[in-house]
């Protein structure tokens, strides 16, 4: 269980060095992406002008405040509260996000499924579990909203955040077939019969 501090972007080798239960803290650029962003990019053929090669995305739609373009708010938005949403709904987009845009890290809560695990294995990537619902804390790790694209989808725009000390986050899916989510789910299902028996349920 090692800890890594990354200045984004990272290389394939850096992504492949990570193993389940390692921890990672991010610095620099982090992209925010969400259901509608994915749908428009991959089902409706829209492209982003952002270079996401080697970068990390987080499953989010932030609370922001329009304050106008200033030095501190170059795209006009100030962060209010930035947190993380459940990843599972966006499972089917992981491979395309990696193969078309070169993304190496997906950050979310609740984990992704077998398809994403395969994409991490084939293309060299990881999933980092953040603590969902801890958005007040997460917001303190965001220095600035540097830029925004596809903003007609607001709040589900493609956000470009600048972060500092973003973490530590837990590697819960790696490029070696490891998934803490699968492991915990399997072990919980293995306890189903005993739990029902303790409740007096006749199976």
């Amino acid at each position: 269980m090692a800890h890594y501090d990354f200045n984004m972007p990272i290389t394939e080798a850096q992504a492949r060095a990570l193993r389940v239960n390692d921890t990672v803290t991010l610095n620099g650029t982090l992209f925010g992406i969400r259901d509608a962003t994915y749908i428009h990019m991959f089902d409706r053929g829209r492209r982003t002008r952002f270079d996401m090669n080697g970068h990390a995305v987080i499953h989010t739609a932030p609370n922001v405040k329009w304050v106008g373009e200033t030095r501190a708010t170059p795209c006009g938005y100030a962060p209010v509260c930035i947190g993380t949403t459940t990843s599972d709904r966006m499972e089917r987009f992981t491979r395309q996000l990696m193969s078309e845009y070169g993304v190496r890290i997906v950050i979310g809560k609740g984990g992704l499924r077998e398809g994403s695990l395969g994409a991490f294995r084939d293309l060299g990537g990881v999933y980092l579990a953040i603590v969902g619902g801890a958005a007040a804390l997460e917001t303190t790790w965001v220095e600035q909203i540097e830029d925004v694209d596809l903003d007609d989808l607001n709040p589900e725009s493609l956000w470009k955040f600048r972060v500092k000390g973003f973490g530590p986050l837990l590697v819960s899916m790696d490029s070696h077939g490891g998934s803490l989510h699968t492991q915990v789910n399997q072990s919980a299902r293995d306890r189903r019969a005993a739990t029902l028996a303790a409740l007096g349920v006749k199976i």
Partner: protein
Amino acid sequence: MKVDLKQVEEACKELYIRALKLLPPDIKQGFERLDRGETDATGKAVLGTMIRNIRVAEETNNLLCQDTGIPIYNVLIGAGVEIDGYQLKQAIARGCERATREHPLRSSVVHPVTRKNEHTSCGRAVPVINVDFAPDAGVLSIEMIPKGSGSENNSWLKMAVPADGIDAIKTFVVDCVLDAGGKTCPPTIVGVGVGGTADLCVHLSKVAATRPLGTHCDDPEGARLEAELSGAVNQLGVGPQGLGGDSTSFAVHVEMAATHITMNPVAVNMQCHSARRARATFTTQGVTYGF
């Protein structure tokens, strides 16, 4: 008592913001209890981050979670309270919209087909407004619940049959907790509706999921189910965020209604660990805020 609708609008704005920022004391105590009992290292670390987040939200006057949810207002009208029901609903919606624009908050509400977001947290039949009546003389109470989607997406109804008995209810609850895994942002309050019609059963599961910790079903059979299931779901090892541990749920809550001789419905609605709610109480003395 005559209710001032301007005061209701202001309160409904204030309630949305308060609910998003201040976690009720019973939930904070629930966290302390789970933290004391958690034996898994990852589970313990995750709970620690959640508890730290509650403090950071208070210190920075920020929202606990970015999910502003679907706004729900539960109105309880006491005896002798005079109010125009239609205007009351309009005042609630105005307060909800003003909170969204003036704070500002992320509007999480869209048209279900076009997915268009009006950036008001309002839309057709939203905010959800439930109205009920109470014997309390001269008291109007409005409870606000911002219901997050991570937990709301984990909602189920099963129209079991009488021959399936109570075993069907117990099995269904355990299976829902397994299906939800980490998607529902555990530790959760598992809300269980038992009986009624299909829609009443689902409504009861929401009432159960959003009830304060430490309260119990006022039907003895329901209270017994709560005790049994609360222990059982924490044997599964799903843990905080579904990353493993003892703290899968704060509690299982049950609400009941009589049902048909041919029916045995059970519904489950989950409340995530950010179990937010706020309450405004109106009397002739004015308005007071609490949980």
